[in-house]
């Protein structure tokens, strides 16, 4: 074998090894689960859900989206009409770090993904939190991976599905959902 062909083999092997490890290291977020709580896979497809509204402060940019069950409920007047969201309603709040728009300096746009928060209505499964289960997954941009949030995150998240209940009790009259469906 010539020196040149050996070198070619070495290069090809190195390229294949790199490709292989890259493919393996790509995380399947849908295998994640809050310990003793909700699984990421229960919210499969959230990337394509419809917009409920947006919100923004100095720390985070968020878009709130919901699954078809929940969007249909909003459009029929829930929760303003006093009725609760039905079982199977799911919503997600996607948070990004804010950054200045490069073309319009007075405009803030999403930067790196920060976390994804979920709520699901299942009265039988979550009787102690008015039927809602909560989950919070932190995204680490450096490693391109998600992980369940912990008590070290802000807001702190204990390892159960009730972490959101305490805060959301403020919106009890709106079936524990802060965000209104924004007119468009």
């Amino acid at each position, binding site marked *: 074998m010539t020196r040149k062909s050996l070198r070619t083999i070495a290069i090809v092997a190195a390229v294949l090894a790199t490709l292989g490890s890259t493919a393996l290291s790509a995380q399947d977020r849908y295998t994640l689960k809050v310990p003793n709580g909700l699984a990421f896979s229960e919210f499969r497809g959230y990337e*394509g859900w419809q917009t409920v509204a*947006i919100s923004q402060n100095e720390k985070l940019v968020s878009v709130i989206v919901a699954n078809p069950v929940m969007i249909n409920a909003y459009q029929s007047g829930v929760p303003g009409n006093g009725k609760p969201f039905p079982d199977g309603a799911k919503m997600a709040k*996607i948070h990004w770090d804010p950054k200045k728009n490069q073309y319009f300096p007075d405009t803030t*746009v999403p930067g790196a993904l920060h976390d994804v928060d979920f709520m699901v209505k299942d009265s039988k499964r979550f009787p102690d939190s008015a039927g809602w289960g909560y989950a919070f997954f932190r995204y680490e941009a450096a490693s391109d991976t998600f992980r369940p949030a912990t008590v070290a995150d802000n807001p702190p998240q204990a390892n159960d599905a009730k972490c959101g209940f305490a805060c959301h009790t403020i919106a009890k009259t709106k079936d524990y959902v*802060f965000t209104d469906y*924004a007119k*468009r």
Partner: protein
Amino acid sequence: MKTPMIAIVATVLLVLGGTAISAQQDKYTLKTPSGVAFSDFRGYEDWQVVSSAQTDEVLKVIVANPTMINAYKTGIPANGKPFPEGSKIAKLQWKPKKSTEAPFAVNVPETFTQAFFIEKNSKRFPKSAGWGYALFNYDAKADVFAADAAPDDCGHTCHTAVKAKDYIFHPYQKR
């Protein structure tokens, strides 16, 4: 005198019915001064999110139709390819308010104000790189939309700043 009473009631009901029908504007009959129809963007209320943006005065969500979302997901426009014919994108704008319910300071939508639209149709809009622009203003008090008086807002002129991205400012945000 029972018959006249019935007639009066019937008349009142007819008038009420007529009011209900006429009070509800059909926004999809509107057209911009340059001839782009609101109905070209029918169903935009349900399109998927591309991104969002905020200034001190405005909260914005950018949504796109399935043709355009699929194009974004295949790597357009970063891969150098243009968005396909039939791509449609909307920028929905609200006046913000401070949330009175959230346990932290946060701005949320208060009043819907404007819907900006862009559609790709190379045959119809050859002079603006295939993109047609439309702007409809929403009057919340009257609950009616109206086409903006400008021929096509700043449309193509402004978007030329991002010619290298097929004239589209917003990238599809990771989620």
